[in-house]
């Protein structure tokens, strides 16, 4: 078995110099057009399949809902009914008669506020629970019970406490998104390798420096997992909460459309809700990649 392998070696060394010479003679890069064609192909591979699926889905939907007596409108009807809303999202006729942009931005503001509070409080509480055995023993059972409470179940209680829709909605976002942040942060903190703690001990970092320089970066992948789950949940909760509290917001827009039997508007709103939920998730994922330099996160 070894013989042929040994034999080929001298042959390879003889060929090598000529091969090297040939390579140095042609340092040609592929022409720019080729590069663009390659890029276009790569994009097409990613974009075409979902487009085909989307087109098929629209076709089936159109065929199913086109029949007379269908309860839901086909896509063509949806587009025709909601043309104004699509092309003019910025109108403002006072009250809740506003363009979709204003509804969505009102919802996003609530989410931004509630979620930011949840992120700060969640990371702080998670650090406490992850770092201290006693805090974990005391708080963890409480968290495990509280986190199972559905978001909307908090709404009446928060309305009773705040006596106003706006802070109540923000509280619902807060209480919905905080649990995964707490739990994931705690797991991340508990999983900090002893090595890093030893390094911190030898360098004599004080607790505050330890928190910023070791804990947060070491637990960052876990924290961001919690943050991503949290943003998803808070976007889920806002629509439901807004349906009940009323006022400007995408949730109440949907509820209002249902009450006035504008089914097409509901479908358009759902489309926007989905897209924005997706974008929010990607934003947190992008932030995670940026903050951890892609080193800790796969």
């Amino acid at each position, binding site marked *: 078995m070894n013989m042929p392998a040994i034999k080929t070696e001298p042959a390879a060394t003889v060929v090598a110099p000529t091969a090297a010479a040939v390579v140095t003679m042609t340092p040609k890069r592929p022409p720019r057009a080729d590069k663009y064609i390659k890029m276009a192909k790569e994009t097409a591979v990613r974009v075409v399949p979902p487009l085909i699926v989307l087109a098929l889905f629209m076709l089936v939907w159109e065929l199913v809902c086109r029949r007379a007596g269908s309860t839901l409108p086909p896509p063509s009807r949806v587009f025709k009914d909601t043309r104004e809303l699509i092309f003019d999202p910025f109108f403002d006729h006072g009250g809740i008669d506003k363009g979709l942009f204003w509804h969505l931005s009102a919802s996003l503001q609530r989410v931004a506020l509630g979620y930011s509070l949840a992120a700060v409080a969640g990371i702080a509480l998670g650090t406490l629970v992850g770092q201290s055995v006693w805090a974990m023993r005391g708080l963890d059972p409480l968290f495990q019970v509280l986190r199972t409470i559905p978001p909307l179940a908090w709404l009446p209680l928060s309305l009773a406490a705040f006596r106003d829709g706006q802070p109540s909605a923000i509280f619902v976002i807060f209480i919905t998104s905080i649990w995964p942040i707490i739990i994931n942060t705690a797991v991340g903190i508990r999983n900090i390798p002893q090595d890093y703690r*030893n390094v911190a*001990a*030898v360098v*004599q970092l004080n607790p505050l420096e330890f928190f910023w320089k070791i804990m947060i*970066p070491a637990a960052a992948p876990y924290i961001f997992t919690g943050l991503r789950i949290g943003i998803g949940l808070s976007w889920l909760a806002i629509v439901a909460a807004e349906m009940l509290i009323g006022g400007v917001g995408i949730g109440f827009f949907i509820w209002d459309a249902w009450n006035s039997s504008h089914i097409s508007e509901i479908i358009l709103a759902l489309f926007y809700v989905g897209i924005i939920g997706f974008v929010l998730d990607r934003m947190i994922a992008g932030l995670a990649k940026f903050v*951890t330099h892609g080193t800790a996160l796969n």
Partner: protein
Amino acid sequence: MQPYLKLDHIDKTFTRGNATTEVLKDINLTIERGEYVSIIGHSGCGKSTLLNIVAGLTDTTMGCVLLENREVNSPGPDRAVVFQNHSLLPWLTVYENVRLGVDKVFAASKSRSERDEWTMHNLNLVQMAHAKDKRPAEISGGMKQRVGIARALAMEPKVLLLDEPFGALDALTRAHLQDSVMALHQKLGNTILMITHDVDEAVLLSDRIVMMTNGPSARIGEVLDVPLARPRKRLELSTNAAYLKCRQRVLEFLYERHRFVEAA
């Protein structure tokens, strides 16, 4: 004269529930300034525990560690550790890993630009200045260990503690790094305490070799002086009678008188 570093009657027992294990028993050792001392023993004999005690990362059960006649019982930069698995922080660059220690130790005594200079100086000592902006994941195992050494050296420790620093490296890289550590020791005159399980490494690098008996209740079995002049050359030593004799003594200790018992 008072010894520089003194391990004074150190006992260590670990207690888990009802089970108590005596790991170290009556360890006495003095190390002079500038000395290179290795501790060798089979795995599980408590040599890493001993190093952690000197580093202050583990408490003693009895006895104490005296550095320049003062008791040390908590970790600090005066006893910087080079960890076996390098323990670089993966989210920091090579430069930032070294700078972290520099910023803490010289917060008051050096200006910003001096700290930067000192960081680069130490990276230069281990020939890693070229990779200062790389992250640990982007450099090889040997390079990581070099940075680990630079981080420890940059704290200007009174004693440099090496915890099997070359254990995770391949033979060629290990030899290369051993030469670097020898050169650094020659140049800077650090006091070094190294844990190892490699006989050749111990003889090549050390002034004295501390041989530990098997655990539990490991003791210092024998201390061997290595009467080899420095600087030492790896190749010349391989035929040197004194070198071979030292090597023989350590091997005898480890494989005849204190053979590793699997069950222990």
